[in-house]
């Protein structure tokens, strides 16, 4: 009960996050809108994974490792071992979780830019391993087709709705898990490591163990996002996933929403993605990416803590104005 009371605010936010999109579902049935939002839910899970690793001071620039491995493992588990996609979705990510432990162990002494360089390098190695060493399993550069999550014989509209609801539910579940971790003693240890490893170690925090834990959990969550993406939206996986682009997106989403909060990645993914879909139609892909780059540069130099704190302050101010008898903060 103590944990539930501590998470009261998060449970309310989770209910809203679940309720509003379901309400939307009763109003809008346009396939395109559903697909964009399903994408947002899946990549919010992915951004959440990056955010958790970053929370413990590990700023990964090779997060595509987890996304890709989760996708591959789940698809292979489903098509080779005959698991139902709904089961493979949770079995497959064990592989990226192990990869998270391994990469975390490899990088246990590294911080900041060094950690970024090596995690990026790991993605390149994983790509070669997937294409060459496990080529017999992964069909090399051609990649694999994914069995779909929805049962066969369902019409397209129903499939879209099903994907939407499942992705939404998993996003909210991930949010609660990450929020519970961040609000617990483990989360305090993460923040301590993030702020100052030496001081954290002096205070009795087992730095390496917590860093590995963060990477393992991040690996699992990132893998779920990859598996979900494969079984619902892309229906295919190829080694191209281990590129720079899929490692940069979760960073962008998390920064846009605000680092270090469990709400940030979700808000950020929604904002960036909706903007992206709008911009792509107006000004084309290259210009949209240039614009995102310019905005990121601007945010970093002008708003180093992201948009969410501004958003939270604004809603708090609004709340204070709506309740006239509330005590004014000095």
């Amino acid at each position, binding site marked *: 009960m103590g944990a539930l009371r501590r998470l009261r605010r998060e449970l309310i936010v989770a209910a809203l996050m679940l309720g509003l999109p379901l309400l939307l579902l009763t109003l809008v049935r346009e396939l395109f809108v559903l697909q964009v939002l399903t994408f947002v839910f899946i990549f919010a899970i992915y951004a959440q994974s990056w955010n958790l690793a970053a929370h413990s001071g590990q700023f990964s620039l090779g997060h595509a490792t987890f996304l890709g491995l989760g996708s591959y493992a789940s698809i292979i588990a489903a098509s080779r071992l005959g698991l139902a996609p709904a089961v493979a979705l949770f079995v497959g990510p064990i592989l990226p979780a192990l990869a998270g432990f391994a990469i975390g162990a490899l990088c246990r002494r*590294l911080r*900041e830019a060094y950690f970024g*360089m*090596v995690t990026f*390098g790991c993605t390149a190695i994983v790509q*070669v391993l997937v294409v*060459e060493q496990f080529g017999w399993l992964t069909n090399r550069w051609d990649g694999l087709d994914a069995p779909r999550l929805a049962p066969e014989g369902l019409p397209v509209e129903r499939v879209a709705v099903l994907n939407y609801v499942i992705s939404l539910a998993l996003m909210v579940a991930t949010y609660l898990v990450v929020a519970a971790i961040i609000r617990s003693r483990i989360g305090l240890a993460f923040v301590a490591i993030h702020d100052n490893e030496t001081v954290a170690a002096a205070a009795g925090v087992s730095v390496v163990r917590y860093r590995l834990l963060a990477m393992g959990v991040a690996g699992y969550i990132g893998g779920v996002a990859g598996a979900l993406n494969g079984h619902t939206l892309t229906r295919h996986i190829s080694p191209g996933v281990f590129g720079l682009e899929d490692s940069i997106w979760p960073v962008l989403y998390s*920064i846009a929403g605000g680092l270090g909060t469990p709400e940030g990645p979700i808000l950020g993914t929604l904002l960036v993605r909706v903007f992206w879909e709008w911009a792509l139609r107006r000004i084309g892909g290259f*210009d949209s*990416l240039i614009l995102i780059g310019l905005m990121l540069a601007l945010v970093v130099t002008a708003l180093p803590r992201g948009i969410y704190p501004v958003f939270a302050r604004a809603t708090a101010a609004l709340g204070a104005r709506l309740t006239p008898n509330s005590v004014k903060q000095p």
Partner: protein
Amino acid sequence: MVLDAGTLLRILLWGLVSGSVYMLLATGITLIFGVMKVVNFAHGELMMTGAFVTFILSHAFGLNPYVGVFVSMAAVGVLGIVIERVGFRRLRGTAKINEIFFSIALILILQNALARIFVPRFREYVQIKTPYATEVLDLGLITLRYDFVILLVLAWATLLGLWVVLYRTGLGRDVRGTSQNRTAAMLMGIRVERVDMLTFGIGAALGALAGSLYGIINPFGPYAGTLPAIKAFAVIILGGLGSVRGAVVGGLLYGIVESVATFFLGGSWRDAIAFVLLIVVLLTRPQGLFREGA
């Protein structure tokens, strides 16, 4: 796979040539790191910008690429100074992670600005044509392309020039001093912010040279800079961050190792070797990672 003396020499020569490109790239990154303690993840994009400037000068204006490369170095050098002035300088003193984020923004901006200009006009990949592309020097066991000779001379002459600047001029003394101890350098009256700006410019210009030479021996596109830059990161971690000597030795060694390993393990391992090497170093000599020198 028959390994005779000629084949071996060819592998080593290719290693020397590609190693010289990595060397220039790594030197630029390590200089910037030494002085500013900033890892510029967008260095590969500066490199490709340099390659594209040289390409355009030779393609559209018919300028000899070995002349055009100097224009390109000057242009990208100025771009580097602008980036330092409006970007990295504002981030000094904030969380280190902001520098990584700013680099990512630079990657997005430069890559897509290049793609926007080049993809509609040319195919995905272009290569810089030189007037000597067909001429070779016959050395008996192997034949040597003129381009390789000029490339090696250019790379090493530039390195010699850099050495002269670093160790025989007042500016070089300021750069080395700032790199060793920023506060002390400031107290000695060195204008460290000017040093930052010039170092970033020099580093970017070295990147432009590396890119142009890369573009003469390889096809390249707007997104081709990422991988060489990441390899250069591996090189400077191997050689010791902030150490120019480490970048030179590491770059050459890396080029040769890559060339030999590609021959024996196959082409697809080419890009992963850097990281296998890096992992081995991290596991066996993690304490040797952060040696910093001049």
